[in-house]
């Protein structure tokens, strides 16, 4: 059986949970097995995970508002043992990354993190992920009976293949938390960067933080999350969590706008897996154009407002 841990921060599933369950269903199909979703603590309408391919949804009762990898891993590993999980799937998120290694050790399982392919199972269990910052793809063989995978965000869209199922609850015995959460601050209302399908990103070409209005307006009209290059976060023009690239967040949205960003290799390392890249830069020699699908060579201060207007027109015509 394939066991998917569906994250439910603040009692809500996000798109990533549906992605993980949909992926779990694909893995289960490849193996000729079924897919079970596991939810920790309260979650609104856990039965909806059935729509994404879970034939069974199991909810562990208990207080799981605050994250401690030791507590969560214990509950997930116990459930995996009890329910007979052969492949355990988590998201490649801050939560999932903190769990994968613990689950692997607890279950004597080989693990592959950040996978982006459906495993092949004939002649060994094999699955792929991007390595060397997207410059290559490696195929891993997992040799153990139990396997743990974390799924790279935006690799597979959530796919509806079934309908809501009844939720079974189990009582979870968990150790006491040793990590105490004091404070959580997230920007509400926008999709967090690692999950965003559309991203509008800007760099030092913006000249100063006071000019970001045109970027925010474009992002707003497109329905995108904003990001930035590293120097821009370093000098404090933009918040640190917006920084993408090798030392920042690695993302793979469907659409990435790079505005006034030169396209240094360390920046590309975090964004070159994006499906479509649009570059706006006034320098025709900017290296980013080589990684782009569409390019506009012009002054961003002229072109960005025009692009925003064009999107407004498009939205009006298509709503």
């Amino acid at each position, binding site marked *: 059986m394939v066991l998917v841990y569906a994250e439910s921060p603040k009692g809500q599933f996000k798109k990533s949970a549906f992605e993980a369950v949909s992926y779990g269903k694909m893995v289960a199909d490849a193996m000729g097995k079924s897919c079970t979703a596991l939810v920790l603590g309260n979650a609104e309408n856990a039965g909806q995970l059935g729509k994404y391919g879970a034939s069974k949804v199991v909810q562990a009762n208990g207080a799981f508002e605050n994250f401690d990898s030791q507590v969560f891993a214990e509950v997930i590993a116990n459930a995996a043992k009890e329910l007979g999980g052969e492949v355990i799937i988590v998201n490649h998120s801050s939560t999932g990354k903190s769990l994968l290694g613990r689950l692997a050790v607890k279950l004597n399982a080989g*693990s592959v993190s950040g996978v982006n392919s459906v495993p092949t199972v004939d002649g060994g269990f094999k699955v792929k992920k991007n390595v*060397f910052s997207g410059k290559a793809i490696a*195929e891993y063989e997992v*040799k153990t009976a139990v396997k743990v995978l974390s799924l790279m965000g935006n690799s597979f869209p959530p796919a509806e293949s079934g309908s809501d199922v009844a939720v079974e609850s189990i009582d979870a015995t968990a150790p006491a938390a040793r990590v105490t959460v004091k404070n959580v601050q*997230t*920007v509400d209302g926008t999709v967090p960067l690692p999950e965003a399908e559309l991203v509008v990103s800007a760099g030092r070409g913006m000249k100063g933080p006071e000019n970001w209005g045109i970027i925010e307006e474009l992002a707003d009209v497109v329905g995108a999350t904003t990001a930035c290059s590293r120097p821009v976060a370093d000098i404090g023009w933009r918040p640190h969590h917006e920084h993408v690239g090798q*030392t920042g967040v690695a993302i793979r949205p469907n659409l990435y706008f790079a505005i006034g960003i030169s396209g240094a290799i360390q920046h590309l390392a975090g964004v070159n897996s994006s499906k479509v890249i649009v570059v706006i830069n006034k320098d025709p020699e900017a290296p980013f154009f080589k990684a782009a699908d*569409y390019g506009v060579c012009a002054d961003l201060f002229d072109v960005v407002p025009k692009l925003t207007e064009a999107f407004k027109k498009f939205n009006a015509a298509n709503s």
Partner: protein
Amino acid sequence: MKLLVCVTQTPETTANISFNADNTEFNTAGVNFIMNPYDEWYALVRALELKEAAGGSVTIINVGPAANDTVIRKGLAIGADDAVRINAEPKSAMFVAKQIAEYAKEGSFDMVILGKESIDYNGASVGAMVAEYLDMPFVSFGTKMEVAGNTATINRDIEGGEEVVEVATPFVVSAAKGMAEQRIPNMRGIMMAKRKPLNVVEPVAFDDPTAVVNYTLPSAKSAVKMVDPEDMDELVRLLHEEAKII
């Protein structure tokens, strides 16, 4: 405070990535190796700062072959007191974690500090494994860490924001950007590093649970399509009709 810092080496970002003839091995010829930036800039430097503030020692650990000694010496030059190399090819995260944990459990370290991920295989896996082997709390992606007595307050990156947590020693923490500022080794540090102990320890037996069976290069991007700056409607049309992304 006794601190253990895990460091690994990775190809430089600008390195040309190629493979052997049957695409089963990474071709290291002509590749320049560096200390993994998260380990060097953040994990190691924060450890040194904590030691400078409260006393104690900073030990570097690497699981790797003798070729890694150059990178380990650089860590000593930056300021670590001593180093240990577990003499084995690091072929899987679990193997590496097992070796680190075996060493760490004898040393009664207050903290094991790692980088948030290695920039070659981007595993972000070893930290949680070490913590599990040692039955210690694990705080990942720390961007700030203050220590008072035996309690650490750590800010960590989460999706779209940050979380502040408290944890008592001993624990395992992984370091992301923000934790410290890069330090460049000076001449004196480099000279002193030559005399600092670098102990080589043989690994404990452990089977790799995973193996890379082949590598491929991503398909080449087609050439960029340039759009007239005066015609942004055209760009929107292309994104809609050609790329089918909106």
